[in-house]
């Protein structure tokens, strides 16, 4: 029983991911056009939201329509800790934003994780819209529909503000953090708790009859997923220097959900691939027609029919045919 979880494979994966991040950063700096770099930086930020939704679907079999809420709270939290009203030093405040959002969503998770399927989706939708309306109404705190401008300090964690707010700077920072989150989640899935989360996804009742209290772990997975979204919100706020309620709207969650479906959730990196594919698709299709969203919808239908497990599942199947193995998780 002892040697159940491989660590050498994880180390090799870590190296490959680190190399990929470095190569992507160098390639984009060498050959990336201004538009491409801008597109990539936005894709990286929204990847966190798609990743969060995909992780929840993969780990708990739950589809959230309200993950714009933790994303938006991360962004508004950033705006607040960097404002004059915050009693905390900016760096310390920024470090606390994600845990604070995760804490809130752990409590939310204790309630919503009792539900499944449509009921869960509708409750998260209602919750997300609740945050959207609150952000629109509490003008004193959020700036209401006009939003709120963020004054970044000259330096954050030793980085100049203009680096953080440059497309290339955000692309590299975002990609590096995304890679770390990816590796952390891979490691999590290989732990006892990760296996337990997979068992709960498959058969919650049996897990309780094995001596576990499953509700707290389900809430923890929900909170972890919210934390990933909040991290994206923090980067969004730092990059844009502005937050408004539109990032809390359900349509923002919907777009990220489309990215997640497009990329597939059978592999951990699927939603990230979906986010990048979505951004490039949107860029190319919007140049052709104003009805680009209809074409995105058609593409989504084609991809899900051809590859029910999304782009990542299709790529994995292709690699498998070529004799290369990928670690395929049992996910919806």
């Amino acid at each position: 029983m002892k040697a159940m979880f491989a660590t050498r494979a994880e180390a090799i994966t870590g190296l490959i991911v680190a190399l990929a991040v470095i190569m992507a950063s160098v390639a984009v700096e060498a050959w990336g056009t201004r538009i491409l770099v801008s597109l990539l930086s936005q894709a990286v930020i929204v990847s966190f939201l798609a990743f969060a939704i995909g992780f929840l679907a993969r780990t708990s079999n739950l589809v959230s329509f309200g993950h714009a809420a933790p994303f938006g709270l991360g962004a508004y939290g950033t705006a607040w800790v960097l404002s004059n009203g915050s009693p905390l030093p900016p760096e310390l405040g920024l470090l606390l934003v994600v845990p604070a959002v995760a804490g809130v969503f752990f409590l939310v998770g204790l309630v919503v994780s009792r539900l499944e399927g449509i009921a869960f989706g509708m409750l998260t939708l209602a919750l997300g819209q609740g945050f959207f309306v609150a952000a629109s109404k509490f003008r004193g705190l959020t700036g209401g529909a006009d939003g709120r401008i963020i004054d970044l300090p000259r330096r954050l964690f030793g980085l100049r503000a203009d680096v953080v707010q440059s497309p290339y700077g955000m692309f590299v920072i975002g990609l590096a953090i995304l890679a770390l989150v990816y590796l952390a989640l891979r490691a999590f899935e290989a732990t006892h708790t990760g296996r337990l989360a997979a068992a709960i996804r498959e058969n919650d009742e049996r897990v309780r009859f094995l001596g576990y209290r499953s509700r707290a772990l389900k809430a923890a997975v929900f909170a972890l997923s919210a934390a990933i979204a909040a991290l994206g919100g923090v980067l969004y706020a730092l990059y844009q220097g502005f937050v408004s309620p539109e990032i809390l709207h359900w349509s923002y969650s919907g777009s990220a959900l489309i990215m997640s479906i497009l990329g597939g959730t059978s592999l951990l990196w699927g939603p990230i691939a979906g986010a990048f594919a979505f951004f490039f698709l949107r860029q190319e299709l919007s140049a052709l027609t104003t009805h680009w969203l209809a074409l995105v919808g058609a593409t989504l239908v084609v991809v899900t029919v051809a590859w029910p497990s999304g782009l990542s599942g299709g790529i994995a199947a292709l690699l498998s045919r070529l004799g290369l193995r990928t670690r395929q998780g049992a996910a919806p």
Partner: protein
Amino acid sequence: MTVRFRCVDIGKRYGGLAALQGINLELEAGIVHGLIGPNGAGKSTFIDVVSGRSRGSGQVFLDGRDITRMPPSERRRLGVSRSFQRTSIFLGLTIREQLYLAAHGAGGGHTGELVEMLGLGSVLDERAEDVSYGQQRLVDLALALVGNPVVLLLDEPAAGLSVAESQVLASHLEDIAARWNVAVLLVEHDMDVVFRICHVLTVLASGKWLVSGPPAQLRNDPAVIRAYFGGTA
């Protein structure tokens, strides 16, 4: 013999229908107690109520301690384990992974001995969805057995198995009850298995207690025959 598990006045209603009425039952260490009756007698409902899966009336005691209001997870940690009518395992996990989870949840246990006893050694690293149905039933049983349970509630463990597989399972259950001194409640439709390994039987009919006694005595009991076949036997 020591009474480990005592169920007092167990009842369950579904709206106006009384699925169980005033059932009393005691399980003793090392004894396999069969619970039989025709379809709809309330056997699975009884296991569901006393294991904490569904709410009913009455009280449940483990070694004299009232556990009626405890959630299933706490009951399991105290040593009350159960299996389900339908195979209830984790198809996407390997056998090793799920036994590990079960052992951890129950606070440790003899997985090695179990694996050897149930003949699961050759499939430990297979995903549960990739092994035969008979092996899946054994995994189901193994999950219930991990962690030295003191009470084992089994809901049709032989369902869907071939005659030969049922006999192997019966041997395992007989062995486990005797070697580990476990109090076993067995709900089973396979009468060959029931009459082979049960030390005592309780018969339910329409949610009510009908009769209890040794299998040899009940085999030809007119009330039992009437409950199963109807009419005036």
